[in-house]
């Protein structure tokens, strides 16, 4: 708790003038009633001078209905403030320090009351949980004396934290590109072998499994031939989230910004890919470096879940750290396995990230860009930004990069739409 000096609020400023005016008017005209009015003014002036704002000795307890909720859950916050000092606080205004990443959905995180020593005041409000670790800021208490002429601002810390882990729900399969590992999985490759989808037929060779011999053709022409299928293999995928300052864009105050949406989509993609047997890793491209090497398994899923919730590079507001693009890119390239595909989540709000995508794609890491659209078209400059972004995405597509322009609709819908368009 920090103590600060009380300041004048100027609440009673002018009351002395009233007393003076009444007195000055009463003197020449000999009116007792005007003297009495002057007395009222003097009385209030004395009241305003009497007593300083009490030194608020407050203890704060903050209680969450759930300390680790799932995203979008409604959490009720109950704040209890006790006057631990010996003086009555006649005018106490409390403003709770709601974390910047959370929004109050019901009730008010504020209270105006009066507290006698040892008494408690309680107020509660509801916040909607969002992904991440949220720490409450100190509660601000404005203490005034009874007349309201003096005021003191006190901050009381209660140290409350809410951790909200993403659920990692797999909404739909993420279509992958052809770059794969030697292990079997679900990405249909151009390699002829065993699988589900027809690839080619060839002359029968000794040792081919009987189940793959084309018996219909044998019946027709008497020639033995073997059917080959597209071999299905697993891929190594690195989900790369653009968390540079330029990526923190949102159409308006209430909508989650592009990084928020990216991280959410990365969580969904992570879960979907992991459940289809692919090796998935997570990386960030921004001031705070984050790297989770591609792997499989339940433990890996738990690690990723914690990482997506807590890691500073995925926080809801931009990092203050400086960002060195070329170092970050070099470090990322060193870490990427040679056979790793990249799914880049970026709003593509500047040309730089487009060149990064092109370069990574050119280095042989086949790249898919999932781009949450933060642009709007209400003013001319914003329309221009939208047009620039469209051009950028078109250029990336012409360079052979798969781009999903993710607008308002759920990602699964956009994925289904895009998948129909893509050839393998």
């Amino acid at each position, binding site marked *: 708790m920090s103590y600060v000096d009380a300041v004048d*609020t100027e*609440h*009673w*400023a*002018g*009351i002395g003038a*009233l*007393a003076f*005016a*009444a*007195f000055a*008017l*009463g*003197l020449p*005209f*000999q*009116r*007792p*009633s*005007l*003297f*009495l*009015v*002057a*007395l*009222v*003014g*003097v*009385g*209030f*002036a*004395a*009241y305003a*001078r*009497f007593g300083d704002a009490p030194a608020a000795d407050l203890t704060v307890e903050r209680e969450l209905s759930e300390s680790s909720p799932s995203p979008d859950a409604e959490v009720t916050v109950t704040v209890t403030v006790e006057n631990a000092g010996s003086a009555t606080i*006649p*005018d*106490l*205004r409390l*403003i709770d320090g709601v974390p910047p990443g959370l*929004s*109050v*959905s*019901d*009730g*008010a995180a*504020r*209270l*105006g*009351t*009066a507290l006698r020593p040892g008494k408690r*005041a309680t*107020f509660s409000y509801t916040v*909607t949980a969002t992904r991440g670790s949220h720490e409450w800021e100190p509660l601000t208490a*404005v203490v005034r004396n*009874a*007349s*309201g002429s003096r005021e003191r601002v006190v901050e009381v810390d209660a140290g409350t934290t809410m951790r909200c882990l993403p659920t990692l729900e797999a909404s739909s399969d993420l279509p992958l590109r052809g770059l794969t590992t030697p292990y079997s999985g679900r990405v249909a490759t151009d390699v002829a072998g065993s699988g589900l989808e027809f690839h080619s037929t060839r002359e029968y060779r000794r040792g081919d499994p009987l189940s793959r011999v084309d018996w219909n053709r044998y019946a027709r022409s008497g020639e033995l031939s073997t059917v080959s299928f597209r071999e299905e293999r697993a891929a190594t995928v690195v989900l790369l989230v653009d968390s540079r300052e330029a990526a923190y864009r949102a159409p308006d105050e*209430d909508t989650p910004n592009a990084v928020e949406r990216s991280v959410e989509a990365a969580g969904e993609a992570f879960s979907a890919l992991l459940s289809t047997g692919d090796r998935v890793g997570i990386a960030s491209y921004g001031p705070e470096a984050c790297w989770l090497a591609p792997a499989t398994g339940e433990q890996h899923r738990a690690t990723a879940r914690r990482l997506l919730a807590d890691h500073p590079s995925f926080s809801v507001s931009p990092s203050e750290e400086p960002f060195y693009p070329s170092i970050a890119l070099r470090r990322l390239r060193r870490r990427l396995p040679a056979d790793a595909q990249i799914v880049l989540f970026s709003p593509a709000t500047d040309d730089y990230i487009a060149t990064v995508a092109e370069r990574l794609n050119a280095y042989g890491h086949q790249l898919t860009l999932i781009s949450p659209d933060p642009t709007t078209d209400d003013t001319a400059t914003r329309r221009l930004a939208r047009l620039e972004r469209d051009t950028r995405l078109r250029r990336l597509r012409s360079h052979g990069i798969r781009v999903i322009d993710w607008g308002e609709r759920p990602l699964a819908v956009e994925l289904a739409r895009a998948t129909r368009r893509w050839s393998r």
Partner: protein
Amino acid sequence: MSEITREPSRFGVAVAAGFALLSVAATAVVVPTGGAVSGLGLVVLLAGLAVASRRLITNGGGVLVLGALYAGYTGAPPLLVLVGALTGVLAWDAASNAVSVGEQLGKETDTMRGEIVHVVSSVLVGSLAVAAGYAVYLAAAGGQPIASVFLLVVGAVALVNALR
């Protein structure tokens, strides 16, 4: 998501309007001209509350009391003048407090308790001043009421200065 509307609290507005009406009534009973002046003050005060402007509220409160002062100048009964001036000051106090509460806490917040305490203590202090003054005035009614009240004011000013 609920935004904070930084407007004066409803309770404060109601209390201020009530006191202002009382002030206008007390003045208008004996001196209609003073009542008209106070009525103007009431309108300005309410306008100040509507746009949450401290300056308008102070001006409105000033005009309210001016009406009461005018009534006192024309020789109205001291008690009514006193009530008019006191309720004028209380209306100004409540309105100004409502604006500051609105600025700091917003309209949706429960601020009732703090505001009640503020209003009640202001009423008590004002009533005490009125009661003391009026008692001296009545006690000295036979002899020299003006001199005694004058001396009381001078004494009160001296006391306030000595306290500080």
